């Protein structure tokens, strides 16, 4: 009986302190104020676990068709480059101002900080899921609401090659004809 009472008190205390933090206004939601290391770790770990769990059964189609680079390229230029940059560009207002910051997809995923990608299929699956569903409370929209899977896979194929492109190659692939 005593133990149940104690647990109850602890429970009420926990809710109470959570509510105090919430309602006091002490939590800073400004995008120009980074999370503490602990909160950052918590959110990142939650995001990565969530994505790999949700994406694990996605079947990766053949992404080697050059035609995919053309549709994917045009879409990338018009919908993504403002946040995720392109060859020869190292920052934009969005890439600097958003928090969490959109990663620079024009450099190799091995050189951007945060996480490693195990293999190509794993990375493709992850990218497809993120593009289709977006990421809550970040600037990353869910493009699946307005684009079919085929167009999203084309962007995945394009992103696979993006870090190898020169600004001139990028211009040719992404221009509209």
């Amino acid at each position: 009986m005593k133990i149940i009472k104690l647990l109850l008190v602890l429970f009420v205390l926990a809710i109470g302190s959570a509510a105090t933090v919430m309602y006091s206004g002490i939590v800073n939601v400004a995008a120009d104020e980074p999370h503490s290391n602990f909160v950052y770790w918590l959110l990142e770990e939650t995001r990565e676990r969530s994505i790999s769990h949700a994406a694990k059964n996605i079947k990766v189609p053949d992404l080697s068709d050059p035609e995919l680079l053309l549709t994917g390229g045009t879409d990338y230029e018009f919908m993504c480059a403002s946040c995720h940059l392109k060859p020869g560009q190292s920052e934009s207002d969005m890439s600097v101002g958003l928090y969490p910051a959109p990663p620079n997809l024009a450099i190799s995923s091995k050189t951007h900080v945060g996480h490693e990608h195990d293999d190509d299929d794993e990375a493709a699956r992850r990218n497809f899921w993120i593009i289709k569903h977006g990421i809550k409370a970040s600037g990353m929209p869910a493009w699946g609401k307005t684009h079919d899977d085929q167009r999203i896979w084309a962007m995945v194929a394009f992103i696979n090659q993006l870090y190898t492109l020169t600004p001139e190659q990028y211009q040719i692939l992404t221009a509209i004809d």
Partner: protein
Amino acid sequence: MKTLTKLALVLIPTMALSLSATAHDPSLHVKKAEKADCSKMDHSKMDMKNPVAIAMMKKCMKQSKADDHKMKEMDHSKMKKIESKAAKKDDQEHNH
């Protein structure tokens, strides 16, 4: 604070930011319908097994069909001939 209020606190600045973000750099938000600049293609460096190279060729061929004179701007003098590539391969094979 309701989740909705919190969400709004995050989303409204995000949206406001994305609306005005490119306004400072005109080159970014003037999205003119640019054509592919095929004159900059360096065919000598192109490996025709590479999907990027193939895609670029496709794009420029499609475009040059649309307006013919564009083709003249490509620097074909630098293009490796297919035969020469095949010949090189042969050489290597008979070298040992």
